[in-house]
């Protein structure tokens, strides 16, 4: 498929899902009438549902999804490993731990920026730890082992906090938060995450040639004029900012960063540079779709988006492993 056509199709998909996300819910809103109502009478029920409930939810879904897809593609390109993704190697759980510590002590009430900041520090430290553990050339085994170890460590610390949670209610809050969710988010949440998200995305601008050169290994890339150390740091900081902000806002939404680049890679002829923008679009589409999904699936209590992406993502991941095994024979 031609690259421009792929970008156009994915953009159309994201736009469709975004608009659907505004329309679908407990109270279906005909989008055109709702938009007109919001313009004329901002205090009407329809206007409030659209601008204060649906719109922030859709905007956050869009940007968090794009961040997850983008970070996954960047990390896979950097480590030249299709199994590398921020959630699998522990960056996301690091971010989650940072946020949970703040939530546990209730510090965010005093200073709202503390929640994304703690998440960013968590993502930064875990990603840095992964880079230190795996060294310059990350073989699959080392990478997965390091990821398992870090995920286990972060998981244990989160369990400790849950264990010590002052009330069952607080515990439930913390658990739900680790599952990833987009409900009850406000425009304030969106504005809080936006600057860090954009900063992370900006750091990833112009890294395409570097990722391409890395297809030939780190040493050849550096003889091709790529500053490999700087490239590493850029991606590390981008993940810390964008993923940290995303996890602080929605909790952990798993498997998007792994599955989306994996699915789209053959469609861009395995070009790690072109994979970045299409993964951002694909990630946005997947999270928006999953968030629509949880609203459509009838259930007693609200389903969490992260649960749905994991339920769809994990079997898909197994399928990918099986397929790649057959292809290698």
């Amino acid at each position, binding site marked *: 498929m031609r690259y421009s056509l792929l970008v156009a199709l994915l953009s159309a998909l994201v736009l469709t899902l975004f608009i659907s996300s505004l329309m679908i819910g407990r109270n279906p809103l005909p989008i055109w009438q709702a938009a007109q109502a919001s313009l004329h009478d901002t205090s009407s029920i329809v206007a409030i549902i659209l601008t204060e409930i649906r719109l922030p939810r859709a905007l956050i879904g869009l940007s968090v999804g794009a961040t997850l897809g983008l970070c996954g593609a960047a990390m896979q390109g950097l480590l030249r490993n299709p199994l590398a993704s921020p959630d699998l190697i522990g960056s996301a759980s690091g971010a989650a731990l940072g946020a949970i510590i703040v939530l546990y002590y209730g510090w965010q009430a005093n200073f709202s920026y503390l929640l994304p900041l703690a998440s960013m520090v968590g993502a930064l430290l875990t990603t840095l730890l992964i880079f230190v553990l795996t060294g310059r050339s990350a073989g699959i085994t080392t990478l997965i082992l390091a990821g398992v170890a870090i995920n286990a460590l972060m998981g244990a610390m989160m369990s400790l906090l849950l264990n010590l949670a002052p009330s069952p209610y607080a515990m439930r809050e913390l658990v739900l938060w680790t599952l990833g969710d987009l409900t009850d988010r406000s425009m304030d949440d969106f504005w809080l995450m936006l600057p860090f998200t954009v900063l992370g995305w900006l750091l990833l601008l112009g890294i395409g040639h570097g990722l391409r050169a890395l297809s*030939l290994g780190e040493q050849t890339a550096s003889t091709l004029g*790529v500053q490999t150390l700087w490239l590493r740091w850029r991606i590390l900081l981008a993940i810390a900012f964008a993923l940290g902000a995303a996890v602080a806002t929605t909790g952990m939404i798993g498997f998007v960063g792994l599955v989306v680049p994996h699915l789209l890679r053959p469609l861009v002829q395995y070009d790690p540079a072109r994979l970045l923008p299409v993964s951002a679009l694909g990630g946005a589409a997947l999270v928006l779709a999953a968030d629509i999904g949880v609203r459509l699936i009838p259930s007693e209590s609200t389903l969490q988006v992260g649960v749905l992406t994991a339920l769809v993502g994990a079997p898909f991941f197994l399928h990918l492993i099986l397929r790649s095994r057959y292809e290698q024979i």
Partner: protein
Amino acid sequence: MLIHAHNLSFSYAQQTVLDDISLSLQAGQLIGLIGPNGASKSTLLKLLAGLYKPQQGDIQLLGKPLSAWPARERGRVLAWLEQQGAIHWPLSVERLVALGRLPHLTPWQTISAVDEAAIEHTLEATNVLHLRKRSAQTLSGGERSRVLLARALAGQPRVLLADEPIAMLDLAHQLQIMQLLRDIAQGEAGVIVVLHDLSLAARYCDQLYLLQQGRVVAQGTPPQVLTEALLRKVYGVECAIQWGHIPSITALYPVP
């Protein structure tokens, strides 16, 4: 002078890997680095490519210290071909070879007509034009070596440092690639190549550097370096050497 290396020493984990090596590459020269396994030929090449920094000595590339070159500018002048280099994604041969043009592009630039022409030319010269649409991961060992060489040549470097480029090739392709290196090493460009085949080294190279345990044991034209006594001393093998229109060096038996 393309490359001038002076009194290079390099140690790794408190072990001296290269000891007091001087080497120079002139335009139009094809230099062969030969020597037994573990002689640090590849390490020397990596030093010359700027991948490692020597603890002692200095390297000049086109009269300017190697470390003073901005990375991308250096990439346009000097290409390094890794021994059995990696290909991490199943890119098409064409796209893989195009990576050699990266030093000529700014971060947002895409391949131009000039780049296309250079890629086309190298694909042809390395005899892989018919593979251009193939996925790099479906290539045979020999095809892969030639594609990776094409990648290194696509940037049209003045200096090519090639680490065993013919190790995986059949007889016909060995001759073809050595002739190609010979053709490249003329005019303004020069080539340093690590070789194990001494007959081909004798036939194609202008100068040979014979390395043993990180030191240059002998250096000069092929007849100066490839003597029975020296090969016996360095490789521990008795050899039969015939100098003719096409030189041939045959290993006979290990020295007891």
